[in-house]
């Protein structure tokens, strides 16, 4: 359904008296992903990994520096202006913060209904009927359409955000940290709602998150990003049970486990240092500055993505030794 081919997104950095371009932030630096219909693909990474930028590029909210985006077999990289509208109907996004994503002075009806006005020219009763139907689907009372966002809790606001994203019946949804601003008991409800809606509307999801527990629960396949690159891609259980990239191993071992006995007994791989600046990424393997297994070759030569087992890819010079 979605195919990304060698996507790059560089942001210019300006400085000095004349605000000239003095460098580039390589936010996304050559990422290729295929997402099948009906799949939930999880993209995990920490701050500065480029996962959010990649999500924006997929939706054509920002232009890639290079690379191609195919949606349902069609190259949509160059679509501009009105030609983009049909794509906007098919692909939508759910943002992290339901407090910021909703216009505080608009009623719920106008927030959810706006795409219907823009794309279908709907008004009046028909509009309200569609909004009311959607509110029911996201588990809210249709009466709530006359209220304002501040009257709702965080979980309910996220339901409103989801309702707006789904009102045009898209096929593809980017979920950008959909539960990061929510409490764990509310998170459970929203994740359950998202899986119900996936069935109901036969949706395909790209889930972007830093939360490994959420991504494990929710995704069929996972891609791990580090400093603008994908370092490992695998089916969910394969990734958690048999990670081969040292960054993935460190990431998994960093997750706190809700089991005090296991927490004390398990061996932890604590990664040293911090993520380097994407303006000046390290030569060779970008992870070598933090990698406990780095050798000379890692400082000079960039590892390529290799297939390790069926559907499991990683870019590490030493995956054979480490797995």
């Amino acid at each position, binding site marked *: 359904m979605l195919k990304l081919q060698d996507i790059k997104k560089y942001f210019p950095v300006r400085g000095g008296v004349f605000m000239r371009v003095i460098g580039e932030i390589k936010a996304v630096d050559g990422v290729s992903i295929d997402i099948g219909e009906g799949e939930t693909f999880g993209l995990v990474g*920490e701050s500065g990994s480029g996962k959010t930028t990649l999500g924006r590029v997929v939706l054509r909210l920002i232009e890639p520096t290079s690379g191609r985006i195919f949606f349902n077999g069609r190259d949509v990289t160059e679509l501009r202006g009105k030609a983009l509208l049909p794509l906007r109907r098919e692909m939508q996004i759910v943002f992290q913060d339901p407090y910021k994503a909703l216009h505080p002075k608009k009623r719920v009806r106008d927030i959810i209904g706006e795409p219907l006005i823009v794309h279908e020219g709907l008004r009046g009763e028909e509009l309200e009927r569609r909004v009311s139907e959607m509110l029911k689907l996201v588990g809210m009372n249709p009466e709530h359409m006359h209220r304002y966002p501040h009257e709702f809790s965080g979980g309910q606001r996220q339901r409103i955000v989801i309702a707006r994203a789904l009102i045009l019946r898209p096929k593809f949804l980017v979920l950008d940290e959909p539960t990061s601003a929510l409490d*764990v*008991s509310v*998170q459970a409800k929203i994740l*359950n709602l998202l899986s119900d809606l996936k069935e109901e509307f036969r949706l395909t999801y790209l889930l972007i998150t830093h939360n*490994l*527990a959420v991504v494990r629960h929710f995704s069929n396949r996972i891609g791990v990003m580090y400093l603008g690159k994908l370092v490992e891609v695998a089916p969910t259980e394969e990734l958690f049970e048999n990670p081969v990239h040292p960054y993935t191993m460190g*990431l998994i071992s960093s997750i*706190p486990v809700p089991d005090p006995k296991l927490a004390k007994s398990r061996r932890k791989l604590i990664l040293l240092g911090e*993520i380097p600046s994407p303006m000046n990424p390290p030569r060779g393997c970008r992870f070598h500055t933090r990698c406990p297994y780095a050798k000379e070759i890692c400082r000079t030569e960039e590892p390529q993505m290799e297939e390790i087992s069926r559907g499991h890819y990683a870019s590490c010079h030493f995956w054979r030794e480490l797995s």
Partner: protein
Amino acid sequence: MLLEVRDLRVRFHTLRGIVRAVDGVSFSVNYGEVLGLVGETGSGKTVTGLTIMRLLDENAEISGGEVIFEGKDLLKLPMSEILKIRGRDISMIFQEPKAALNPVIQVGDQVVESFLAHERVSKDEARERVLDMFRKVGLPDPERIYRSYPHELSGGMAQRIVISMALALKPKLMIADEPTSALDVTIQAQIMELFRELIREFNTSVIYITHDLALAAEIADRIAVMYAGRIVEVARTEELFENPLHPYTVGLLKSIPGSRSSGSRLFSMEGEIPSLLNPPPGCLFHPRCPSRMGICEREVPSLLNAGNDHLVSCFLYGR
């Protein structure tokens, strides 16, 4: 016993009415113990921490209770005494390390100041001790870090500075309020490891405030679970996870995604946290409780020992 909080009550006066943020909270912290104070938004965990430090805003009113620290009730001490205790005997760190640092002063000088405020040492000696502290918290190149300003530091490094400041005077109690929530998970793992080492080395007691039960499991000796301004359950960490008693704790543990449940549905508790402007009568959890009984709507359960030093406030386990 280092600290004993007894029947603490804190109310906020807001435009919309009175919010009972902390409503009869009691717990204790032993010497050298790490107590995890766990709860979701609005549970009162942060307000409890701020009350102990006497850092509440002006619209807050302490309407009852005692906070006994080494035999003295902190709520009755004059501010001049509190200022001596803060930093020296009790210190606190927050989620946003940079908010705790002055943006226009070199970070080294800021930590030196906290030394000079409480101890009679020369500036040079304080400087040496700060550099020593910076090495202890794992800051690379301490001399350079000493001269940097907060905006030049990453979140992880800023939190290390704040930790070094909080521990510089070897306080007896440290209150840590979500100290790793703003950090990436690999940096969080580093900071947690550092915490564990330092707590052991300095033998500091800690109140570790977090919304994350899994994180509390990694560091706390004992955990108190808060809900809507009250403590619902207290137990040793392993006991709490093996044998959770309060229906809220049980629900919370089941809501955590993870383990091998991919594809299946997550357990989700009915309803949402009640408004503290207009809380329900009786047990505050009863509208969401799968085991509620008639009595739960009328009476407030007290926190009782259900055996094994496992405290729970729920009528399922007696009155």
